[in-house]
């Protein structure tokens, strides 16, 4: 008898849905994964959703009280929760909102209708529910998505690298951006993307979040050495990681 397939549902919260699109972009790899799982709910790729899932793949950050209720409900049903993409894993770009007091953020965006929108400070989903697997990145990297699904299906833990992007960048033998008089968040950003951006001529923006024990002082010194002022450094540090408030505070002091 064939083992019944695990049922997977995709959910989105505050985000751009780009990471779900990356799942669709997996092409043939997705077909291989579908040998082992059944997708029962995926707004971007199917029209008749069902609610009998065991595995919840959650994209997006939490930014309203309603989000909290909804995600808590999902966690109750799901045996396994996967956080998909930077918004879900670290708060993502939309957490920039947290850098200013909430009422000012609301005024900026909604003007005179500000009081009609009940939003809260942006949170990555693990500030509300327990997360079993993290797939970092903005957007997620197809190889890592496949790797996490493999680990899930084999019932083992996925070890997210705890070393910086520079390690992968050097293995790819890129010319370091600092040697080209540019700056880069690679030294403090969690690897796992195979230095995707730098390989393609871009800088690392830190979309995978900070490594566990980043050398913030040394990184500040380096950025300052390359001519960035305090505000520019804060912008660099908080484009993706505004949730990790303590770093912003450290830099200001």
């Amino acid at each position, binding site marked *: 008898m064939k083992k019944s397939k695990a049922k997977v549902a995709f959910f989105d919260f505050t985000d751009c849905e780009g990471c779900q699109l990356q799942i669709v972009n997996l092409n043939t*790899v997705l077909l*291989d*994964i579908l*040998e*082992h799982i059944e997708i029962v709910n995926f707004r971007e790729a199917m029209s008749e959703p069902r609610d009998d899932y065991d595995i919840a793949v959650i994209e997006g950050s939490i930014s309203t009280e309603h989000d909290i209720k909804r995600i808590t409900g999902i966690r109750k049903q799901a045996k396994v929760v996967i956080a998909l993409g930077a918004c879900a894993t670290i708060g993502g770009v939309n957490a920039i909102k947290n850098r200013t007091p909430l009422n000012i953020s609301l005024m900026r965006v909604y003007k005179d209708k500000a009081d009609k929108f009940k939003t809260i400070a942006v949170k990555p989903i693990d500030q509300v529910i327990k997360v079993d697997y993290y797939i970092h990145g903005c957007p997620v990297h197809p190889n890592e998505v*496949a*790797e996490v699904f*493999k680990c899930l*299906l*084999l019932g083992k833990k996925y070890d997210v690298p*705890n*070393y*910086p992007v*520079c*390690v992968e960048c*050097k*293995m790819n*033998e*890129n*010319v*370091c951006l*600092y*040697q*080209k008089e540019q700056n880069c968040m*690679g*030294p*403090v950003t969690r690897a796992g993307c195979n230095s995707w951006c730098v390989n393609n001529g871009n800088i690392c923006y830190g979309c995978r979040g900070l*490594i*566990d*024990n*980043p*050398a913030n*002082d*040394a*990184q500040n*010194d*380096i950025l300052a*050495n390359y001519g960035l002022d305090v505000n520019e450094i804060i912008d660099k540090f908080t484009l993706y990681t505004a949730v990790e408030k303590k770093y912003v505070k450290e830099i200001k002091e």
Partner: protein
Amino acid sequence: MERYAKISKKDFNRWLESLEDHGKLYGPKKKDGRHVFRPIKDVKELDLNYISTILPPKKYYFPQKERLLKFKIKPFKTAKAIRKFEEFVLFGVHTCDIAGIQCMDVVFRQEPLDANYINRKDRMTTVGIECLTPCDKYANCVSMGNHVPKGGYDIMLTDVGNKYIIHINSAKAESILRQRSYIKKCISADRYLLDAVRKKKEKIFKEEFIGRLTELYAVFSKLYDSEIWKDVGKRCVGCGNCTAVCPTCYCFDVLDEVSLNLNDGLRYRLWNSCQMDDFAKVAGGEDFRPGRSARQRHRYYRKFKYPIDKFSRYFCTGCGRCSRTCMAEINLTETVNSLIREHRNVSIGI
């Protein structure tokens, strides 16, 4: 064959093209204003006038990510991951990087022998190129004694104007030189040219360290607890670039990857280094070498103290890559010189 031969520059590309029969050709090529070792498809891409490549040639005998083992889960089975290693010619290697190859050899040829390394290395023909001018402010090859050829290669080329003098150092070397009419015997005038080049080098290559290697050994024996390590650790961002680019760093991690059929897998080794936060962590979370100061100190001790005790060999080649690549501007020559200074001050009681 004699130990020395020569080739005129006009015949040089002809020789390069003829190397095709001896395996794949790898050599220095331009990339983004720097140089990297890459496969040479058209001999015109080869650029022998270069400052050390971003990664040393170690990537060819100790690749970044290398397959070690194939396995199946059900029924459990293992097999060699690589059946056949290929012959290749590593062309245009600086003398510092040849010293790096010698260091790796010492390590990987210890028992238990490292089969993958030896398989690759034994299929490699090394053609060196002698540097005639110092690279830049980062290299410390003179202090390490690696700015002149000291063996470890099959062939060494020295540019003496309109021709290269070829030092033939192995039987392999003979096989890539013989039956080529344009490779000629050296006459005494050629040896004279070679001597003149070496004399001229003595004048322009200056020692970078303010002390000799023997003094350095004493310095490292005494200054384990120096404040200098604290300062280096404070500036270090922990990116790991210095160890990745070092021709004598050989640490790796081992990991398994299973394919999407969830049954066939490959075991790999992947470069890893003492600069990583988790490197010295063991089960239970205990970290034997916490903090960037201790980690940086360890890197230096792995070049200037431990290998001397273990292998009677300095494991810094002087290539300067670690200093060149460090965005925190931690400079090996400066660190070593401050240690020597501190040691001298302590000795005379300042």
